């Protein structure tokens, strides 16, 4: 069964990468809707990635690096070949921008992982996660990476329900779906999150 799930997951990832490549191509061919979709999908998780990497930075610094990353990614879009997930590609650009920024600020403190992120899923299976692990930079980055790669409606539902504590009714309104359909989206989103969390991390921490 596990093999079936892994196989399905691999196929799904391949198909998603193809979709991401197609979206990127639409942006470079002048499709404004595609640009909006790209921004809608990746702007927030990219910001979160930079926020956690620049732990302790002022909000203006986070925003500046975020803007620089978006600009650089846009300019480099023709070079995206779909060889990795689009968000992984974005994060690699962000890491360079963060490094540039840290050099300018003479900042060298980047917290390193204490718990390998791939072990999170095992920890979750063994009881409540200790607070210190939940708060770790590596944990936060792993969560952002996973959320950044989920379909937009899954991420929207999970963030609204669990990060913002909204009721299922409100999430339904946000998604423009019925209550039942939203419960179903949430269920599938939780499963996708768990599956992605169990997978090998693509973002090098």
């Amino acid at each position, binding site marked *: 069964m596990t093999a079936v799930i892994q196989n399905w997951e691999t196929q799904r990832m391949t198909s998603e990468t193809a979709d991401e490549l197609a979206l990127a191509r639409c942006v470079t061919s002048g499709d404004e809707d595609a640009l909006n979709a790209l921004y809608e999908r990746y702007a927030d998780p990219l910001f979160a990635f930079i926020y956690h990497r620049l732990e302790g930075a002022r909000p203006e610094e986070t925003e500046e690096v975020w803007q620089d990353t978006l600009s650089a990614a846009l300019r480099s879009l023709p070079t995206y070949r779909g060889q990795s997930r689009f968000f992984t590609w974005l994060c690699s650009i962000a890491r360079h921008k963060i490094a540039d920024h840290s050099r300018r600020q003479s900042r060298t403190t980047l917290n390193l992982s204490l718990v390998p992120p791939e072990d999170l899923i095992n920890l979750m299976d063994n*009881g409540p996660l200790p607070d210190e692990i939940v708060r770790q930079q590596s944990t936060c980055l792993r969560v952002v990476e996973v959320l950044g790669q989920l379909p937009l409606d899954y991420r929207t539902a999970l963030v609204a329900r669990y990060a913002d504590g909204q009721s299922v009714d409100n999430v339904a309104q946000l998604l423009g779906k019925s209550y039942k359909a939203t419960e179903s989206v949430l269920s599938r989103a939780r499963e996708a999150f768990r599956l992605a969390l169990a997978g090998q991390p693509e973002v090098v921490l």
Partner: protein
Amino acid sequence: MNDKEIRDEENLARLIRAGFNRAARPDTSARGRGLRHLKGEWLAAYGSAARLEEQLDPRNQASVKMSSTRAHQEQTPYERNTLISKLSQHRWGFGLSAAAGAAAIVLVVLLAFPKAQATAAEVMTKGAQAVARLTSIHLRGQLRAGPVANFDSIDPDAGFCTIELWKQFEPEPKWRYEKPGRVAVWDGQSFVMFLNTANIAAKGPMGPRNPFNKDWLHQIANPTANLSNTITNELNNAIAKGWKLSHETGRADDGRLKDVVTIEAKSGRPDNDYLNNRFFDAADTRRIYVFDDQSGLLESVKIYLQAAAGDKLIFELDQIDYNQSFNPSLFQIELPPDVSLFQNEMQKLPDNEKYASMTAEQAARAYIEALGRQDWTEAEKFRRMTIDDRTKKTFGGLELVSIGESFTAKDYPGRFVPYVIKLRSGEMITNNLGFKKDGRTDRWWDDSGCFVNLNPTSH
């Protein structure tokens, strides 16, 4: 849900809260700045030429594309290093990215379009740049529409009512939108709308874009947009959709030179669609923008509905005040204690299935007949708000004359049910009831406002 599942969900919630907490997400302003900046750069890099190529006459496409590309290769680097790059360098300036976007469009228009269109685009670009750093704006005008109708509604047969918008851009976006029968505010955190004649309100954390996303004027109420974006969007739309642009100059009474840009906007909707001419964007219009030649500032706007019988003025923006300071109380509404609140969520009924299985026609009949019987409890099963006294007085005791076959309209996520009723006063009303299905309860609900606005003449 068993213990492990509960624990899993708790763990999942804690992880998501840690990774995607509020501080780790851009706020509304930052998000808007990010998108504006990205669009400006995108237009410069990829946007304009592609869209122009799409809308060029196929007969001329090959030759124009070639000359446009050649000109683009020869001249764009120079232009980018001057106008666009300079604008983009100020990316944190409110609206400058929009102006940069407009500059990118005008560059291509200059290369590929007749001089009059190119000049019009230049004037629009200059206008977008002139208002790129606003701290606030106040607009006042006249609109042909029912005084209580939605802000984006138009009604060519109605008289004019005043419409007014105040928007503060910094330090955080706030706005107030007002017509005689309807006022809405966004205080930066939450939205309140009040229909004073019906004593009905809607409030909550709902996005402020919801009521105002239809047309050019209302895009200003979008917290991530300002007048610069609005002008840029108008130009952008004109280019992308192939609308005719023209330019004239004239002198005002005081001798100042004015630039007049006219845009012939086409809705592209089916000829017989029910919602045609009920919204700005659902109508073919001639839009006249007047800019001061020296400052580039937008001074007035007139919009005419284009019809076979002749053009008719439907909107006039005759007062534009820039950079005023507003009293914070402007962005608050004190609601009366007895106000009826619009319910975001309908509740399931014990016999919900009975209503969920109704067709739109059956539901309309049940709803209208309940009003006739003055059975308010039954009638409220088809509404998202309670029935106020004025509605009860007007529609209580009505007689249902006929119900027709329901129909749809482009972009409307519901159905319209034709009906004829006779009020107790003897007045006959023929209209269409807008009915939407609630996703949670699967029941039809009255979305048309025809029993709310109490303004049958406007329908």
